[in-house]
């Protein structure tokens, strides 16, 4: 599917990954245009329903990214985020709902290069997967 342009949403933590996105931008690293950033104050802010609704409303892939474990601006938010992510991923796995369309990554404020790598890699993955059936289904 050469001309498929996925819609990918990135929920980025304000303190680490959003700053990394800024750094990647000002370092003029190449970033995919399909990747839309939504800034949140902490990765633990992402409730399951937010992710599920985002899939329903037309996302082909969702990346949640925040501070590395131990580096959370609020102390421990990302540990909770990690547990919640594991739960949602397990539900998607159990029901065979393409869990690979959801990813969680740690990217610190200094890691502009890593940010570009993570985002490009994830976007490639979603491009290969094609449009999400949840987005296109007429029976939902």
């Amino acid at each position: 599917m050469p001309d498929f342009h996925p819609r990918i949403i990135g929920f980025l933590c304000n303190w680490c990954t959003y700053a990394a996105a800024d750094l990647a931008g000002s370092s003029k690293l190449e970033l995919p245009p399909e990747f839309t950033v939504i800034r949140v104050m902490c990765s633990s802010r992402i409730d399951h329903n937010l992710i599920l609704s985002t899939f329903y409303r037309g996302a082909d892939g969702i990346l949640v990214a925040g501070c590395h474990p131990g580096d959370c601006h609020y102390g421990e938010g990302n540990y909770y985020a990690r547990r919640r992510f594991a739960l949602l991923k397990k539900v998607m796995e159990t029901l065979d709902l393409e869990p690979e369309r959801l990813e969680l990554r740690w990217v610190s404020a200094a890691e502009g290069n890593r940010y570009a790598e993570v985002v490009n890699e994830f976007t490639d993955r979603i491009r290969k997967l094609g449009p999400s059936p949840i987005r296109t289904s007429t029976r939902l």
Partner: protein
Amino acid sequence: MNSIVMKQDASTAIRELLAYLLSSSRVDAVLTMRQVPETGSCDLGLITDPSGMVEAEPFLPVMTANAGQALSSISMSGKRIAAVLKPCELRGFTERVKREQGSFDNLLTISSICGGVFPLEKVISGDLEKLVPRYIEKTARAEAPRGLRETCKACEEFVPMNADISVSVTEHGSLMHLHSDRAEEYTEGFEGERIEARADQSHIDRMMKSRSAAKGKLFQSLEKSSGLDGLVDLFGKCVGCHGCSRVCPICYCQHCDFESINFDYNQPYFQESLEARGALRLPPDTILFQLGRLTHMSFSCVGCGMCSDVCPVSIPVAGIFKKTGERTAGLFDYVPGRDSEEPIPVMVFKEEELGDIG
């Protein structure tokens, strides 16, 4: 373990114990299943007057409401209550206590090795009268009675996990096991021979064998209901009543997110969706609702089967929750309702875990 030998059948003995607790003012109220002898109609009742005990049927194999859910708010009234709970009701209640929706402080919990319950349709059709005698016979022999709830057939948690008093019925007779100081204290002065005994393990093992086999079958039957297409087929007939969450002992939110303004769709949403998809199912989001619930609480699912039982279009909700719940709880070696001191998995974390994520 200190146990009381029951001379009569377990129901009569527990009814006597409950009457004793009420008349000796050790408890203010008793929560138990009741049955009107003349009509056979049954319900879950809270009884304060000892004369009301004649209708008590503590081990009636029916669950009109998950008693753990029903007990939730009354357990915080400050009144002392003796509650007869099925193991999954007790586990459901324990999960609620962890969510600050109940308290063990003034509670004496009585449970039993559970043979399962019949679906409510058997109550409505009036078949219960015929089914119960055979149920008692079969359960005493550790055999699986016919016609039980699907999740009951497949339940491996039929031994109460943290009851004050547990009852075991075997072919060798019935025993009341006292698990806690509170149980010893409340039963003091209650007639009956005290012996040192445990539930018959071979009886439990035999029950477990048929339950495990049924669980395998149940999970296998759900294989086809996965993937988006499978779920669409399964939930295609969902009427969106949210009854499954209303009767769920775990779903306690006063204001469910799915009934909030977040999911109160308006004209622009419909227009936008229609433009994107070309068609829309109404009511919308029936699958999203279950996915949301699965992620929010499946790790606490006690598999009581209330959700499937009340579903007006017979969607096997309970099976899906039981299957998914085992996997989500398994992530954190969590067993719902095992111990009221064990925090729910989303409230805690370990620094060194889930290393493959991120």
